[in-house]
């Protein structure tokens, strides 16, 4: 501790260089923590998912719909409790503000900055098998009685300030779901609360509306985006999934059935090998910062060769000098790491509120900077500082006093 003032004074000596190195380190740790948080959230999302439900989709791609006739066939299969259609609508609010009274609000291009998940579902079986969505009975009744009615999550209602009775318009970017008359009009008939204890992945920023409304508004031409299948016995998931896919083998629309968790994993994988991409970026940044910090430390030590000689002359042992230089490097790492972590906390919190991004982020259960990611970030910062300081410290350790003094 008695050497701490000495270390800090030296860090402040060339404050621009020290400051820029700390900032570089902070940026590195910020990127690492933020990327790791996203990856962790994606990993978590893969693990969550109700074990009593299967998802059956088109074997080729989610882009293709399944025939509506499949619903009855799946429902007849042994081990299946019930089946519900769920189609991802892909609707966005029109850029022009929605209005309560009319068609004016239907004009304007979609505003993707206010994008949120909206699904056309068969309400009765869907909500029966999704008990984690808690809707007051009278609101559910009102929803079922109104074809334009929708149920929205509490988070979504809060985000847009919607309440029961409010009207808004959505325009899908998926061509078959667009209609000549313009965007779809919806009336909020109910607001659900997500039971995160029962289902950690339950998202309260989703809007559900009647599949029938979509089907009839589009001239009864659309199929089912996917089928959600509730099982009688979760242990039979693989058997039932295999039986469903076997039933539609060699048909025009072969199916792929999997558990909700597997479906989430597949859905995330559609983005590409995001983990590899993010990890590569993180590694490149870490390596760059290592070089930058090592260069800074080398310059700092080279400039202070005489001072190091003086310290040794005064009786500081080579080990003590080595310790001082490593401590300086560690201090840079610790300061940069702390700053980077602080920045990550702020940005990760902000991400959940940024329009456009928040919709994606809030779909992940428990999105936030986890202590294990923070610890890893701090450990990397300290390691980078230490690694950057090793060479200059060893050089100072080995240097002979008389040689260093002669270079004055």
């Amino acid at each position, binding site marked *: 501790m008695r050497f701490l003032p000495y270390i800090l004074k030296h860090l402040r000596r060339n404050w621009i260089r020290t400051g820029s190195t700390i900032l570089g380190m902070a940026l590195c740790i910020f990127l690492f923590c933020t990327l790791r948080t996203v990856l962790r959230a994606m990993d978590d999302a893969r693990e969550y998912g109700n074990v009593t439900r299967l998802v059956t989709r088109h074997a080729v791609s989610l882009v293709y719909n399944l025939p509506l006739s499949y619903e009855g066939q799946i429902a007849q299969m042994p081990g299946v409790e019930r089946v519900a259609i769920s189609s991802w609508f892909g609707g966005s609010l029109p850029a022009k503000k929605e209005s309560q009274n009319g068609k004016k609000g239907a004009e304007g291009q979609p505003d993707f900055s206010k994008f949120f998940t909206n699904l056309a579902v068969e309400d009765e079986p869907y909500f029966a098998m999704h008990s984690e969505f808690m809707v007051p009975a009278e609101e559910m009744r009102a929803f079922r009685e109104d074809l334009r009615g929708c149920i929205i999550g509490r988070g979504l209602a809060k985000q847009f300030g919607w309440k029961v009775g409010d009207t808004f318009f959505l325009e899908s970017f998926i061509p078959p779901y667009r209609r000549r008359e313009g965007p779809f009009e919806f009336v909020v008939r109910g607001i659900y609360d997500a039971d995160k204890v029962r289902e950690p992945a339950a998202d309260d920023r989703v809007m559900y509306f009647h599949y029938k409304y979509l089907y009839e508004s589009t001239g009864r031409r659309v199929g089912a985006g996917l089928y959600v299948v509730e099982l009688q016995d979760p242990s039979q998931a693989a058997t039932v999934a295999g039986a469903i896919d076997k039933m539609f083998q060699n048909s025009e629309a072969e199916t792929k059935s999997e558990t909700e968790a597997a479906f989430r994993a597949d859905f995330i994988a559609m983005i590409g090998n995001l983990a590899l991409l993010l990890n590569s970026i993180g590694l490149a940044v870490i390596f760059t910062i290592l070089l930058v910090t090592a260069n800074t430390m080398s310059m700092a030590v080279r400039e202070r060769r005489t001072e190091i000689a003086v310290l040794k*002359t*005064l009786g500081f*042992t080579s080990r003590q000098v080595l310790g001082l230089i490593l401590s300086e490097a560690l201090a840079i790492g610790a300061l940069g790491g702390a700053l980077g972590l602080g920045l990550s906390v702020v940005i990760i919190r902000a991400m959940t509120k940024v329009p456009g991004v928040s919709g994606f982020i809030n779909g992940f259960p428990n999105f936030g900077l986890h202590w294990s990611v923070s610890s890893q970030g701090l450990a990397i910062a300290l390691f980078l500082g230490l690694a950057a300081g090793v060479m200059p410290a060893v050089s100072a350790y080995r240097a002979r006093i*008389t040689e260093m003094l002669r270079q004055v």
Partner: protein
Amino acid sequence: MSAVPTLVEIRGVTKVYKRGRERIEVLHGIDLDIPSGDFVALMGPSGSGKTTLLNLIGGLDTPTGGSVTVGDRRIDQLSGGELAAWRAGHVGFVFQFYNLLPALSAQRNVELPLLLTDLSAAERRRRARIALTLVGLEDRARHKPRELSGGQEQRVAIARAIVADPVVLVADEPTGDLDAKSAEEILALMESLNRDFGKTIVMVTHDPRAAERAHTQKHLEKGVLKA
């Protein structure tokens, strides 16, 4: 009248440097006794081995052959770590270019050798303050080296050299970078340390006027001590 004890005893010291395959013998069998409380000036032309000899006395380097005893300690037999510990407790160094640490104030510079002791922070500050008072710079304690004149910097360096109360002060051209007036002040200060505090001083100098302030003058030529 009792004889003054010998503080520094050098016997048959040789020093060889190797530059590639070339072997350069800088000191050739030096014998030298420095009594306790003496003020010795080491003189000689450039390359004669003055600084090398001073470094051996101060424990900054070890001889290739022979022995160097300071007090009752054979310092040529000490390991690197032992030598560092010995320097911290027994030797004060004054350099031509002061070699103060620019990031630290005068007070902190003077405190540096005390960081290696068990003294409390308050005691370190007190002793550094006394040392600065001794060199007449108590009012400059908070100043950084760049805010001081050359003479003042050298006085801070002397305060740093004496703060741990060493038995011997070694000074390498302490007035070499100073104007005449500042050089005079530094020499007067060194004289005072020798006379009033009994410090043994070994000083390398080119300046005959500086050498005149010493009690003993030793001349080195081509690595050999002349009478």
